[in-house]
């Protein structure tokens, strides 16, 4: 294995050699390496296959913008991540990595046939090539293309890692720890402001890490950096977060930071989270994100070995790695010349510098001459060769008139390109800050901002170290001042800074047919310049449409490299200037972010609250099956050995009707309504009349929205002249209280009423069945339970088993029943006492399913199941619950709107199937004539449907147009197996005379 590490260069720790593998081959890297630098040190450039064409691809960049070098990374113990950027992944001992999107191997990939068929895959190919024949879509095109295209494979096992999140507040948040960000953080830190400085890399420094020979205030760059790090560490008001990416910038300076905590560690400490999401609220923000180098667009610019010049310089200076032995540089910007000089000085043979500009600064040419580098000023690159690695480059002179002359071929194993630099304005764009086009620099710069935010350095087009330092210091001082602190910005003196001028263009000129040039704009999505031109020819004018049609900029790198180049090509094709074409919108996250980081702690049992009643533990110990009801977990049924749900529910139903059942109704919403105006408030909220309801009596209450539709219902007891005990549906409790508070606070603030949620203060035990009174009579103190003294719909306070109780005589089953409210802490004890004492009556615990069947047998509705927000009281057969003489209540006026009085409204009715064994499906549609052509005229649907053990047949409710006038008529329910006939009936199937209730 050849070694491309250069002695005396770089910051990696050569005394710490680390073994890692790529595609099963073992390599050695150094502490401080990324996977990319370690592979390059071993001479490996080919790391992946491209998305569509399966073209061999190498490492293009040295940063988080990398579009090509995506690998699967395996950190052991089920910790596998696809699409990890090799340029970000830090190497540790034992790291296992693999290439993606190739079969059977990276060097011999069958899918590469797509490259020869590239004509099929041009812009919009999805919409064109594969539309015919239609039957091929599902079976051939879609699966085959899906399979052949793509990135890494998602792991199938659950993520074993944990993720943390944290809120933080600071005076000044500095994003980016390069020259500008460091200067800003030092300034703000010195002022005494609380500062958070984050940087996505493993160490602070940004471009300083690649500029070891620059001198800052008389110190070499890395010495200055060490002092700066120490100065920041010494300030207790400064928090430095390396390996932390600012992923999104939201309203009012709320910035999301993703901190990577353990991916770089060989051994993850027990319980350590993998990543942490910081949710930072900053008074002031300084964005110092730097700039991203642009590729040049020419045929064959995607071959392994073709790399950004700045990246090559970083690999050399920061990692001590030369990216080849024989390099050619092609550029439109000075910065690549300095990469060439550094490489040449490190012993790399730099065969030529091709500069597409007509003139370049003379000192560059002089310096190149001194290093014996051939300079081709005003030349172009028109092609490259080499199957798995670039082996030569084709260059041509271009005349002043733009004519491309004869080609010359230069052998090389690395081709370094630079098309200039793009300020990184992503986070600024997240704030909806406006951008302005800078014609001189051919770049978009931040315009008017919407947040308390400043940009500094290359991120706002202030290129060069001195400019970055001074701009950063000024921004840091100004941010601190705006946050209420004062400081005098430091001055910076920089020596040895490289020159920094250049031009930006579209595709490089060529003497070959540009229609066949594989000149890539978006490397990750395999978008070529000719795709963008094709889109324009096909009529796409908006850059947003061109982006979506060609997929340019839509890959995981979010167009960091491709947006401006794509725009330049589109602008040329459209013959409109770049600012008139416009830029697509940057959206969070800035770089790909794991789902785990977003989820944080909110997974598994912490994903959602599970509310449990005080009796829940008893139900669990006694084998209950549970079902979720809003956030509650409720006992669904209590199966005995060998019973399925059907058998258990039939047994529970029979027990209630024959003797005694016990049911945990604690989840019922409960609201205490107290005050001199309590009855008046009730009159205004509910449809019913409350004035005459005597203390000690209950009434079924119906609540409408202002639109006249049923919102909630429940039994309401009047405990005293000024006190009501309101119950609501389990799921409606919070909604009802909010609605009541809204009216009380904003419409009737003059009413003297107080509302208190008491849902969790009471345990509610429903005892239902003919033996209910017999069971509790011996244990109740202070209440005469005789039917005369305590009839159906009575409420009283007393004691049961010595515990204070609000005892209700109510029934949701049609049987003699009580709902025993006791303070929640006594709930389970009272339940157990009742259960023990009830053994002589064969007391049977039942769950929500049995409750549903029993209430349906009696024709009692469940709001939200039998109603859906479009039913009036009359539609639901509850007109009797509306106080006709009341002048007003919420929703009353709506009940006389013309639509509410229409004749053919859907009404709730009972339904009995012709075949008594058939239990209809809830939600099934209903038609009058089953023989009409499809689509049929649907007149309603089934809302509730059960097997009734009591009746030995099925029962159902349905809403049907004009249903009540169709009593006795047959309707039809078309289902996949057959059409079921059913007869419309009344809703009360059991004990219509209510004799059992008053037993």
């Amino acid at each position, binding site marked *: 294995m050849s070694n491309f590490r250069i002695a005396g260069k770089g910051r990696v720790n050569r005394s710490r050699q680390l073994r890692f593998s790529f595609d099963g081959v073992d390599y050695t890297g150094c502490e401080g390496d990324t996977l990319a630098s370690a592979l390059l040190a071993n001479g490996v450039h080919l790391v992946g296959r491209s998305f569509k064409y399966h073209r061999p691809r190498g490492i293009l960049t040295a940063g988080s913008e990398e579009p090509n070098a995506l690998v699967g990374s395996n950190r052991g113990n089920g910790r596998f991540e696809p699409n990890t950027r090799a340029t970000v992944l830090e190497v540790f001992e034992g790291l296992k990595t693999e290439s993606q999107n190739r079969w059977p191997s990276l060097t011999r990939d069958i899918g590469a046939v797509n490259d020869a068929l590239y004509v099929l895959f041009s812009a919009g190919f999805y919409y064109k090539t594969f539309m015919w024949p239609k039957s091929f879509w599902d079976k051939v095109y879609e699966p085959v293309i899906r399979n052949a295209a793509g990135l890494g494979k998602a792991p199938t096992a659950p993520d074993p890692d944990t993720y943390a999140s944290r809120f933080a507040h600071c005076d000044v948040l500095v994003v980016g720890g390069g020259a500008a960000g460091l200067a800003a953080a030092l300034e703000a830190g010195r002022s005494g402001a609380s500062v958070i400085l984050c940087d996505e890399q493993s160490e602070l420094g940004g471009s300083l890490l690649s500029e070891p020979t620059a001198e800052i205030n008389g110190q070499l760059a890395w010495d200055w950096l060490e002092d700066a790090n120490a100065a920041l560490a010494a300030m207790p008001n400064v928090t430095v977060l390396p390996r932390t990416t600012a992923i999104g910038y939201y*309203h009012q300076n*709320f910035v999301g930071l993703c901190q990577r905590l353990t991916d770089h560690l060989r051994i993850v400490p027990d319980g350590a989270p993998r990543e942490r999401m910081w949710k930072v609220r900053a008074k002031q923000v300084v964005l110092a994100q730097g700039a991203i180098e642009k590729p040049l667009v020419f045929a064959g610019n995607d071959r392994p070995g073709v790399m950004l010049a700045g990246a090559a310089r970083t690999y050399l200076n920061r990692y001590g790695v030369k990216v080849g032995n024989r390099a050619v540089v092609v550029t439109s910007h000075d910065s690549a010349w300095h990469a060439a000089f550094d490489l040449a000085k490190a012993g790399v043979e730099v065969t030529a510098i091709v500069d597409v500009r007509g003139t370049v600064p003379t000192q560059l040419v002089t310096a190149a001459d001194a290093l014996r580098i051939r300079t081709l000023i005003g030349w172009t690159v028109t092609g490259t060769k080499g199957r798995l690695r670039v082996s030569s480059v084709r260059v041509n002179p271009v005349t002043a008139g733009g004519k491309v002359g004869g080609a010359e071929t230069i052998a090389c194993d690395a081709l370094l390109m630079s098309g200039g630099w793009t300020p990184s304005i992503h986070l600024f764009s997240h704030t909806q800050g406006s951008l302005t086009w800078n014609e001189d620099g051919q770049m978009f710069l931040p315009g008017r901002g919407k947040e308390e935010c400043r940009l500094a350095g290359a991120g706002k087009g202030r290129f060069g170290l001195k400019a970055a330092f001074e701009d950063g210091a000024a921004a840091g001082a100004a941010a601190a001042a705006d946050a209420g602190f004062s400081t005098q910005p430091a001055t910076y003196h920089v020596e040895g800074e490289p020159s920094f001028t250049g031009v930006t263009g579209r595709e490089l000129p060529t003497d070959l047919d540009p229609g066949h040039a594989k000149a890539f704009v978006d490397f990750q999505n395999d978008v070529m310049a000719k795709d963008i031109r094709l889109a324009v020819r096909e009529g796409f004018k908006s850059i947003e449409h061109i982006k979506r049609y060609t997929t340019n900029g839509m890959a995981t790198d979010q167009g960091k490299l491709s947006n401006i180049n794509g725009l330049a090509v589109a602008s040329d094709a459209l013959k409109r200037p770049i600012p008139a074409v416009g830029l697509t919108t940057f959206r969070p996250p800035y770089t790909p972010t794991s789902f785990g980081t977003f989820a944080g702690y909110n997974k598994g049992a912490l994903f959602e609250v599970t509310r449990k009643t005080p009796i829940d533990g008893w139900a669990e110990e006694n084998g209950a099956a549970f079902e979720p009801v809003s956030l509650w977990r409720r006992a669904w049924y209590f199966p005995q050995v060998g019973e399925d749900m059907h058998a258990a529910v039939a047994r529970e139903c029979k027990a209630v009707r024959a003797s005694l059942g016990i049911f945990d109704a604690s989840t019922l919403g409960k609201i205490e309504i107290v005050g001199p105006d309590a009855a008046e408030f009730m009159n205004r909220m509910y449809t019913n009349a409350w004035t005459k309801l005597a203390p000690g009596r209950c009434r079924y209450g119906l609540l409408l929205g202002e639109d006249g539709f049923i919102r909630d219902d429940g039994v309401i007891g009047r405990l005293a002249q000024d006190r009501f005990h309101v119950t609501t549906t389990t799921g409606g409790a919070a909604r009802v209280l909010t609605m009541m508070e809204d*009216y009380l606070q904003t419409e009737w603030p003059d009413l003297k009423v107080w509302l208190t949620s008491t849902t969790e203060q009471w345990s509610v035990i429903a005892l239902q069945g003919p033996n209910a009174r017999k069971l509790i009579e011996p244990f109740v103190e202070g209440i005469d339970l005789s039917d005369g003294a305590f009839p159906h719909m009575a409420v009283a306070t007393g004691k049961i088993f010595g515990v204070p109780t609000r005892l209700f005589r109510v029934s949701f089953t049609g049987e003699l029943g009580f709902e025993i409210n006791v303070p929640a802490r006594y709930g389970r004890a009272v339940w157990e006492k009742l259960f023990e004492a009830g053994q002589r009556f064969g007391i049977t615990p039942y769950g929500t399913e049995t409750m549903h069947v029993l209430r349906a047998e009696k024709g009692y509705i469940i709001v939200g199941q039998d109603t859906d927000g479009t039913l009036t009281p009359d539609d639901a057969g509850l007109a009797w619950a509306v106080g006709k003489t009341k002048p007003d209540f919420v929703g009353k006026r709506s009940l006389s*709107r013309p639509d509410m009085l229409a004749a053919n409204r859907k009404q709730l009715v009972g339904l009995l199937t012709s075949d008594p064994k058939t239990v209809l499906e809830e939600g099934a549609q209903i038609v009058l004539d089953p023989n009409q052509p499809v689509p049929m005229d649907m007149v309603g649907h089934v809302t509730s449907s059960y097997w009734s053990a009591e009746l030995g047949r099925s029962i159902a409710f349905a809403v049907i147009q004009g249903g009540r006038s169709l009593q006795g008529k047959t309707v039809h329910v078309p289902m996949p197996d057959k059409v079921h006939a059913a007869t419309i009936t009344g809703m009360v199937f059991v004990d219509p005379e209510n004799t059992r209730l008053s037993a």
Partner: protein
Amino acid sequence: MLLIRCPYCEAERPEVEFTYAGEAHIARPADPSALSDDEWRDFLFIRTNPRGRHFERWRHMHGCGRFFNAVRDTVTDKFAMTYKAGTPRPGDEEIALASASAAADSAASVKDARP
């Protein structure tokens, strides 16, 4: 995530503590039965839905529980001011004044917090 000032708690709190409650200053008619069908329809369903300044109701659901009013720009999402339920709709001048003093307040509170 927005920061919203609760006029009852007199404090800025993150958006997650609040729930939105529709357009403000739409009073329930004192006698709904006196309204025509069209007037009642307008009260129930017709809202201004402006581009720009919007008077709206919020509730400090996970705080004091109070409903209050706010002036928010639907384009920038910025709150100009919040005020207690029952107080009249503020005029242009009052809104401008409130947003200016809010900015000054936050700067002052920052200075107070200096060690």
